[in-house]
């Protein structure tokens, strides 16, 4: 018997859903085991009846609920609460759902300031009052992670999450397990670069030049990015972006990690810990430009990013 699944995106970019489709050949074996009673991306089930005449949002009952995206408006909040009522296991898929994600950088401003910019201060926009209509859901006070609103049973972080883990978590549920989580390891634990526990010292370099490496050689011959003097969030970021095998994906591109899988464990303080990691290789963490947003890029929910006082005029 196929297991009933409800899937939907909230404040999301659809990247998580594409990652589901990127499971690859195992997808075709997995699909018949799942019965998607709702998935906006793929199936034409409607919330207000197939003829659009329902008065309230109807979410079908299901064993598994999967939501991507954080919570940014009242309608998303309502839908999430309805899904929670109808499913046995709720999976938060991706870093927006788990931590607020990139859009939670908006939490550094008051909502009014964001609307002021978007509707009255963009070069090509004909200045207008904020849209207001029963069909335009109001913003919630912050861009929140899913578990700030409802209880989450399984978190699959990542931006996007790796297809290996999506398949793994779903298969775990199908086999009767009730819990699943990624092992608590850091990106550095899965990164093959050379580490000597020291750098050239001085300020943290901006990413205005490429890493030093020989392209004909593997990563195991490249010096650690932090030790080359750049910011790499590997030390404080949960491993797994590479799936079950392979090297961290950003490092594979010879680019630094920016923390898309979020903290290694609950209760971690990635910014504080990352400042320590930079200090430990002899870099000056205070020299890092745009430190707060840089170190909390994917995790601005849960109060990690909040409104800062306006910068003094120059």
């Amino acid at each position, binding site marked *: 018997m196929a297991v009933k699944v409800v899937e939907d995106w909230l404040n999301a970019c659809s990247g998580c859903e594409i990652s589901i489709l990127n499971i690859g050949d195992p997808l075709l074996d997995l699909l018949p085991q799942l019965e*998607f009673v709702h998935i906006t*991306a793929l199936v034409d089930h409607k919330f207000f009846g197939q003829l659009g005449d329902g008065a309230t949002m109807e979410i079908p009952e299901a064993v598994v609920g999967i939501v991507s995206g954080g919570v940014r408006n009242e309608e998303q909040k309502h839908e999430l609460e309805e899904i929670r009522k109808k499913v046995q296991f709720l999976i938060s898929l991706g870093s927006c759902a788990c931590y607020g994600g990139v859009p939670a950088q908006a939490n550094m401003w008051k909502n009014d300031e964001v609307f002021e*910019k978007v509707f009255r201060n963009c070069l090509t926009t004909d200045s*207008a009052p904020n849209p207001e209509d029963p069909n335009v859901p109001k913003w919630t006070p912050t861009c929140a992670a899913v578990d700030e609103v409802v209880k989450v049973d399984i978190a699959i972080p990542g931006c996007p999450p790796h297809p290996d883990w999506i398949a793994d978590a779903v298969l775990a549920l199908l086999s009767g397990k009730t819990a699943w989580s990624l092992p608590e390891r850091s990106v550095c634990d899965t990164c093959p670069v050379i580490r000597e526990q020291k750098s050239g010292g001085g300020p943290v370099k901006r990413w*205005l030049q490429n890493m030093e490496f020989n392209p004909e050689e593997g990563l195991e011959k490249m010096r650690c990015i932090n030790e080359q003097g750049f910011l790499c969030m590997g030390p404080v970021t949960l491993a797994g972006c590479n799936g079950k095998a392979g090297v961290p994906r950003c490092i594979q591109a010879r680019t630094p990690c920016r923390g898309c899988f979020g903290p290694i464990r609950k209760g971690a303080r990635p910014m504080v810990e990352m400042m320590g990691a930079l200090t430990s290789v002899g870099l000056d963490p205070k020299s890092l*430009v745009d430190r707060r947003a840089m170190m909390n890029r994917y995790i601005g929910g849960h109060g990690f990013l909040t409104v800062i006082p306006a910068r003094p005029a120059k």
Partner: protein
Amino acid sequence: MGKVINIQPVTRIEGHAKVSITLDDAGNVADTKLYVQTLRGFEKFCEGRPVEEMPRTVCHICGICPWAHHLASAKATDACYGVTPPPAAVKLRRLMQSVAYVSDKILNFYFLAAPDFVIGPDADYSVRNVIGIVQAAPEIAKKVVHMRHLGAQIIEGFAGRAIHPTFAVPGGVSKPMTETERQKMLPLAKELLEFSQFSMKFAKENVFPKYLNAIKTIGVIKVGYLGTVTADGALDFYDGKLRLMKPDGAYDDFTYEQYADYLGEWVEPWSYQKFPYAKKWGKLNMSLDNPVGVYRTNTLSRINVADKMATPLAQAEFEEFRAAFGRPAHFTLLYHYARLIELLQCAETAVQLLEDKEITSTDIRVPITPRAARGIGCVEAPRGTLIHDYECDENGLITKVNLIVGTTHNNAAMNMSVNQAAKALIHEGKYDQGILNKVEMAIRAYDP
């Protein structure tokens, strides 16, 4: 006032939307609206970020076309810092873009659009989807999944991430391609090209002929078009001049720097999504009889504004298409046909780039120094022209951002197409699930 039909959510598209159709007392369509209810505020929260971090931040605008945003942003950051990437870097950017777009077009055609055509627009919703396709055409489904996997393999094997890339940086790219990598990728790209040819043939033989009537009726509107062409008028996804075509086919060409002279964005109180319009044509009017300022982007639009395609197989299909439907072609469902012509160009471009040995040059990034400046970068995303316009201070921190992106351009046109489809299909209060799905098909053509 009669009843309101709420189609929510609009499904098999790549974002949030809903449609409301208001019927009058006689049961005929009085009004329709397509609502896009999400707003994230990128233009605000990018303020203060370092310019060089932008390409890997704004790619998160869209998880379906992250490479398009990534590259438009990289071009805007090149311009902010006043640098020109070396030729190999441009080739590598173009290669990644081409392969990513092949995957995107395959996804749209087979997973999102095909259920309407292969299973049928009136089929029950429980089978009118990709799972239905897997059952109805298992061999093709298998191939599609394999091809998408192949595309991801090419991109991830080289540039690490297929979704939300980090590869393009101001001044170039983060790593060169080795000869070994080139040789490994070339046959994979050739496989993608073969499948693209198969897809075109399959659609022309098995899909489009059956739906000629639907093509001529569903969502048809007569508006303008925007796209990017090279100096000699060929369709280009990565670089060129912008071409804005009026509904009658007359057009203006302009540079990225001039975009704000031609385009404006209107705000309606009932939508977070703005309504870009051609402001040189007058004040926006979305009426079916007398639209003003409305233009479209995405596949059909590019095929309309281009004088020719950039590659031979795509060119042959383009000629056949234009002979059959003219210039500009206005039928909305032709977006699907145009998408497959573009699929061929993307696959051919990927093969061409991989056959060019210069792509393995190690000269891939020029040195950069932050400065106060403005930089505008544009590319053609699968869903339309992306305009990324940044200003930064002397320390290279962003002070202002203006974005006009893919599907947003089509907001006014999609609203019109929904209106046209609903009015053409719903009379005297009679409608069923099939009819409501056909209204959605008018939206799906735009692949929003």
